[in-house]
């Protein structure tokens, strides 16, 4: 990838970013601010505590567990055990779209359930209330599954949500009830919650439904939460290609599908950060290999479809994939051709999530735009540097607190989908099985990589680089826009999307074109604030 724009000297910039911090803070932050070299891939400090008092983008473990991973599945009644707020804030705000097959099918995505813990429960314990709540939910809805999410006080006061869940599961008989110890203080960010969620889903759901699934090329979509309908577009492409989607983790998904996931022959991972645990555990227990894919960007989509076809090694599938690509890409190209002259040479920054800051660079690249700086909100080093760095990552106190499931091959269900030899051959042909090379190898030299960027650093970056667009989340949106720079939300897509696949790429091109070229940015200054505004005294000439 070649630099389209001149990048300022990054070492000076790094200096500017940290020089206002107290010494200890500056020292810590400097390890998370890295000048990229795609060849050598320097180490990025990641997945460490945010300095208290720093204005961070990060959320909590509960957000990662309930908000990100479990929330999108439509037919689980997700009860948040705790004071009302946690459940309220996660109510429909993530735009996980879902489309039941029949209008009468279960769909609780629009509901918000909470035990609404009061002071007496903090003092005397909330398990009893939780069990009443589970019973009431069951009586009202008779759902297939009820999941319980622990908020901060729950762990501290000693409520055992797992015991309560087991008891109620037993009592109800036909409803799977399970809990998550995803208190907000666990770990250092949402990331802890993803891990906890993966563990729970793996333990309590995957493998419950051994019904064989029809289809020749069966896979699971891991880490696709169907924000703005992303999964719909991928589903469309899979269907066109003749690929069978067994389960999606967890956008537009159902309990029965996830319980059936182990019947697939491949896991494709979109959001590496939030779900790679699941890929690994399913490989170990059931023998299903996983592959990192990316459906963000037209080229990436084509590449990902080809990788899937390559994995299955079926000529008919390969031909069909090629036919789909040939059918879809010209429409995309036509749009690119129209828009690119207006976006070419512009610059972007992406500080968001745990995978999106990587994936969306492809779309900007397709628009001829350069990524000046990027970073994740809750990623680990492997997301930056690639999974080869995994053995080198030190486990700190915060990570140690997150349960690491002991998984072994299932005596009955373990069945390696590919032999060792086949896997080796696939790898030799360039398929990165069970691997992910991270973001930095794909970013240009001298671009900045910053983990857990702070508000202060964001403002400085904008001041120093004056990017044409900044990608982050809702908390950053209006701050950045106040500086006259459009901000694209990459969590909620600014209520647009989908951005996956070919249709999504077109949506994104149009949105970025609109944002960077919007007439409004030229209207910010009032005429009287502009240099050279005429003097106040007017002179009139009578006719």
């Amino acid at each position, binding site marked *: 990838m070649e630099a389209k724009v001149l990048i300022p000297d990054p070492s000076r910039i790094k200096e500017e970013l940290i020089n206002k911090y107290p010494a200890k803070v500056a020292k810590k932050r400097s390890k998370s601010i890295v000048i990229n070299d795609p060849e050598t891939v320097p180490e990025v400090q990641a997945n460490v*505590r945010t300095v208290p008092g720093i204005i961070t983008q*990060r959320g*909590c473990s509960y957000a990662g567990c309930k908000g990100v991973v479990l929330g999108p599945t439509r037919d689980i009644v997700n009860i948040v055990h705790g004071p*009302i707020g946690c459940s309220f804030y996660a109510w429909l705000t993530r735009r996980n779209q879902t489309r039941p097959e029949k209008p009468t099918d279960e769909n609780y995505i629009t509901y918000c359930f909470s035990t609404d813990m009061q002071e007496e429960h903090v003092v005397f314990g909330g398990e009893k209330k939780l069990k009443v709540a589970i019973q009431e939910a069951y009586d009202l809805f008779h759902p297939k599954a009820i999941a319980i999410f622990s908020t901060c006080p729950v762990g501290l006061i000693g409520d055992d949500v797992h015991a309560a869940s087991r008891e109620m599961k037993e009592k109800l008989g036909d409803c799977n009830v399970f809990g998550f110890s995803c208190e907000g203080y666990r770990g250092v960010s949402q990331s802890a919650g993803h891990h906890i969620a993966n563990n729970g889903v793996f333990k309590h759901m995957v493998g419950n439904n051994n019904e064989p699934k029809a289809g020749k090329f069966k896979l699971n979509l891991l880490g696709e939460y169907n924000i703005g309908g992303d999964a719909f577009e991928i589903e469309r492409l899979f269907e066109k290609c003749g690929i069978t989607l067994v389960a999606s983790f967890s956008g537009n998904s159902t309990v029965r599908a996830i319980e059936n996931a182990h019947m697939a022959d491949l896991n494709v991972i979109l959001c590496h950060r939030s779900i790679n645990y699941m890929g690994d555990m399913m490989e170990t227990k059931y023998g299903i290999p996983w592959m990192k894919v990316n459906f963000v960007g037209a080229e990436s989509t084509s590449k990902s479809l080809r990788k899937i076809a390559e994995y299955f090694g079926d000529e008919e599938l390969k031909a069909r994939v090629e036919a789909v690509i040939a059918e879809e890409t010209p429409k995309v190209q036509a749009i690119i051709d129209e828009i690119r002259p207006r976006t070419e040479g512009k610059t972007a920054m992406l500080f968001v999530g745990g995978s999106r800051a990587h994936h969306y660079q492809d779309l900007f690249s397709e628009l001829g735009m350069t990524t000046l700086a990027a970073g994740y909100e809750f990623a680990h080093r492997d997301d930056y540097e690639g999974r080869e760095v995994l053995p080198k990552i030190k486990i700190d106190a915060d990570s140690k607190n997150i349960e690491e499931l002991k998984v072994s091959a299932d005596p009955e269900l373990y069945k390696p989908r590919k032999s060792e030899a086949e896997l080796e051959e696939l790898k030799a042909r360039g398929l990165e099985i069970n691997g992910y090379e991270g973001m930095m190898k794909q970013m240009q030299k001298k671009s900045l990589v910053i983990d857990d960027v702070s508000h202060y650093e964001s403002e400085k970056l904008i001041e120093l680089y004056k990017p044409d667009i900044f990608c982050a989340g809702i908390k950053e949106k209006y701050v950045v826009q106040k500086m006259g720079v459009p901000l694209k939300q990459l969590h909620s897509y600014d209520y647009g999307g989908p951005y996956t696949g070919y249709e999504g790429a077109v949506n994104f091109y149009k949105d970025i074109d609109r944002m960077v070229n919007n007439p409004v940015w030229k209207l910010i200054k009032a005429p009287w604030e502009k240099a050279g505004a005429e003097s106040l005294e007017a002179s009139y000439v009578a006719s």
Partner: protein
Amino acid sequence: MLLRHTPTEVKEREGLTINPAKTCQPIGAMYAALGIHGCLPHSHGSQGCCSYHRSTLTRHYKEPVMASTSSFTEGASVFGGQANLLASIETIFSVYDPEVIAVHSTCLSETIGDDLQQITKKASDDGKIPDGKYVIYASTPSFVGSHITGYANMVTGMAEQFAVSTGEKTEQINIVAGWMEPSDMREIKSIASLMDAKIVLFPDTSDVLDAPQTGKHEFYPKGGVTIDQLRSTGDSKCSLALGCVSAEPAAIALDKKCKVPFETLDMPIGLSATDRFIMALSKAAGKPVPASITAERGRVVDVMADMEQYFYGKKVALFGDPDQIMPLTEFLLDLGMRPTHIVSGTPGLRFEKRMKEILERAPYANFRNGAQADMFLLHQWIKNEPVDLLIGNTYGKYIARDENIPFVRFGFPILDRVGHSYFPSVGYSGAMRLIEKILGVLMDQQDRVALEEKFELVM
């Protein structure tokens, strides 16, 4: 149907809250703190709280909402959050340089028993608070009350921790703003200015959460009550608390600490509540009501009279926060409407008592607040007795669509429309806006469902 699983039959619940009509204390404290000039709200808890509160406030205001967090991890939760808060204070003053940090607790820090008073005292003793800078605090456990309680607690904290009584009373009137929009606060100040009443309004989020686009991000926008103003509240001749739930506690605190007598009023939403506010302000200031205010009132009554047929007898369901619901219910009655179903997640006897008074004119009304007074219940009530209009925050749109009910967005949060932060709902101007909005949706519905031969040109 978006809420297809909501059954018509109402069953009492004790454990489960579904689709709440409230959220938790800290967000209220954060919002209130933004109404102090140069203040950085600080959330003493895990990161998620701060992130969620900032996100929700941002979505409602479409404005920057700056706040920091103690970023608790498991260690802090076990060993106490003092170290995190002390470190936060240090970092904040050096990086963000506020005039004041307003710390609020969370369920986490409350459960582990962190004592904010003691920690902030320690920060002060340790020299971590620069000269002329302040750290104030409010205890806002999420498992007590609601976001409204948190707001009231932080406003009370402002009064308690800043107000000073010099012994010399001034002509100033404190106006304690209940939870209202920046536009509302702007309107309150404008009314006082028209009346030539010397007031200090606190908190005051106008020019903070409705900041102009200037090409520059002002970390501390121009608005907010200043610390000097807050200090001066102790010498004011009286306080008017606008809202018995969200504003009165601060007025009581001022009375206790500095002997500032107070009067509690309904938030001035609608005609009658505004009438009382204007009267009270006029009396407190010793100033007559100016003709321009009387005329503005007259314009509202004029529209009420001229359009009475569109309001009369229409059934309304509403949900939201106590200090807004109370005067709004009264206004609906003044308009000849029938407030039929009302819920608010916020508990409180003061609220219940006042609602009972107001609902003497509407003995038919269903009203519930507090535990399980949620939107699920409201929806069930509506299924049992349909209404012509729904008023509430954005979450009401699901009920409105399912039941095909005209819907006026009012309250917090409004996540899907703009205007609330720019155009007031309080005062006569606010009453006019409410009238326009209510009429608008009712008439839109009439136009939509009318048979072709019944489609009206003039209305």
